[in-house]
């Protein structure tokens, strides 16, 4: 139990580390495509901080059946229910961000709405599981499996897909094809629910996880439905691959020349797509939330002129360097070798990582200076709609 405690006191905060970046993506997407500032920015920050702290107080709910006393289980049951509150605050903030906005139903927005619907299901079953007596009944059952897929898949994967469709044009200079993106979303959304909703039922019927075979006939129809759902999810994955291939083929039609394909709000959309290594030729001034949006509004209302004259100065940027990647490669080898007690291989991994770090350490020029002329030339050849 020492190991399980240590594992989950790390592992439960870790699921919030998975989900927090996705929350950020949903905040960006819902604000941008509703053409409204994020609702309740401060309460959003407060909810994030509350989750950060509470995430360290719930780990024992992964093993209520360990046999801790009723008071210990009650404590962790209550904290697990409380952590639903800041998460609920976030859901309401996203809903109110969209409420009254001019929502454009693009692919990232579909993933965001799909997330909200799905995640609330997962959250509700999570609050059920936070009750120790209920948890004792469904511990290790497919009810639990359905629950954590119902939070992690929308909480991470849907967010990744929303962010992928949202920032792809910024990173690569062309948008992703929309129809295949929509098809992919619907396959995922429908397939996901078909695959996991029946698992709640069979979980309540007593089916445990990781079964090598089963001989209960009444489970079978539900598992067939789940299998059909999995096949539809596979269709969603295929659509994603097709989307990428089609988008690369049609990249000239999908090219983003403005740097701001979504009428964005935040500073990254004021740079060219893809942005140069130095991001901003001149450090932008930020006076408010959604600085780029505010600037666009002022320029359009003729209260302010876009910057026309600029004085460029050389910019120092880090040199491209493979040290991190190479060290991580050797670290993976070391970790693998240590797990399987292959000592010679652990030695090779450690030596490789040490040699990589030494090479880096004795290579003093980590920076490269980009000349003012080069910065100016890039700015001239990549005009964006509104320069900050």
């Amino acid at each position, binding site marked *: 139990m020492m190991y399980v405690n240590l594992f989950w006191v790390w592992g439960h905060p870790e699921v919030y580390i998975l989900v927090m970046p996705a929350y950020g993506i949903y905040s960006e997407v819902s604000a941008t495509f509703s053409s409204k500032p994020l609702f309740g920015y401060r309460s959003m920050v407060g909810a994030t901080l509350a989750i950060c702290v509470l995430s360290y107080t719930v780990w024992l709910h992964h093993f209520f059946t360990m046999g801790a006393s009723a008071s210990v289980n009650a404590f962790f049951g209550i904290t697990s229910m409380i952590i639903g509150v800041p998460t609920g605050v976030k859901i309401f903030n996203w809903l109110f961000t969209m409420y009254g906005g001019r929502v454009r139903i693009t692919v990232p927005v579909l993933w965001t709405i799909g997330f909200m619907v799905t995640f609330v299901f997962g959250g509700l079953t999570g609050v059920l599981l936070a009750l120790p007596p209920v948890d004792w009944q469904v511990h290790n059952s497919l009810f639990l499996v359905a629950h954590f897929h119902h939070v992690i898949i929308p909480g991470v994967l849907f967010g990744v897909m929303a962010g992928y469709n949202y920032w792809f044009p910024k990173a690569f200079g062309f948008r992703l094809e929309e129809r295949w993106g929509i098809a992919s979303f619907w396959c995922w959304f429908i397939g996901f629910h078909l695959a996991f909703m029946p698992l709640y039922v069979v979980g309540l019927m007593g089916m445990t996880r990781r079964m090598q075979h089963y001989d209960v006939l009444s489970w079978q129809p539900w598992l067939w439905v789940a299998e059909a759902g999995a096949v539809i999810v596979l269709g969603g994955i295929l659509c994603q691959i097709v989307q990428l291939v089609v988008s690369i083929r049609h990249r000239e039609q999908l090219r983003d020349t403005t740097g701001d394909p979504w009428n964005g709000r935040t500073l990254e959309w004021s740079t060219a797509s893809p942005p140069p290594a130095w991001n901003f030729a*001149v*450090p932008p001034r930020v006076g408010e939330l959604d600085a780029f949006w505010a600037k666009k509004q002022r320029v359009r209302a003729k209260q302010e002129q876009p910057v026309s004259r*600029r004085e460029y100065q050389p910019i120092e940027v880090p040199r491209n360097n493979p040290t991190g990647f190479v060290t991580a490669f050797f670290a993976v080898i070391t970790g693998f070798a240590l797990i399987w007690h292959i000592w010679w291989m652990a030695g090779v991994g450690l030596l490789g990582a040490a040699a990589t770090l030494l090479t880096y*350490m004795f290579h003093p020029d980590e920076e490269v200076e980009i000349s003012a002329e080069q910065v100016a030339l890039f700015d001239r050849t990549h005009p964006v709609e509104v320069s900050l």
Partner: protein
Amino acid sequence: MSIAVGTDDVYERELVNASEAGPAPKRIVVGYGFWIFLLSDIVMFSALFASYAVLAKASAGGPTGAQLFSQQNAAMETAFLLLSSYSCGLMTLAANSRRYFRTFLGAAVTFLLGAAFLTLELREFHSMIALGATAQRSAFLSAFFTLVGCHGLHVTIGLIWLVLMMVQLAMWGFRPVVERRMLCFALFWHALDIIWVMIFTVVYLMGVLR
């Protein structure tokens, strides 16, 4: 680091007035980043301390802390490590005023004291293992060797790092990159001291309490 500024006078005035003089100096950024690394290290040690606290009495009929630990040895280890932190501080002061000899001297004293600490620790481990008190013997000993060994491993890496920094100082002099790395080393070394004070208290002092 140079920063680009607009031609607009208002902009420049605002920039200076609002103290928005571009990104923070690299020394600050590097120091901040290294603090985050140290905090992650301290999180790991917290988990090891928590495990040790839970398992400290689980000696499974084998030797207990009260039978194994020598107060005298632990006190000497503590003295060496605290003094090495002091000499490390003197080295930082010398480096800040760019005095080569004093920097090298401070580093040499720090290294010797750190090595003396490590020698005592390894001797202690050796004598424990000779008595059959190995990491496999009991949960208490597993937790002990993991916690104290992990600290010792950090000290070993710190000593290697210190030697490398002295090589770099001899090669390149007080370059900004060398200064920043020496700053990080000093932070690392002092953090190890704090962890040792905890180990001394939790393992050695509380270990011999009845």
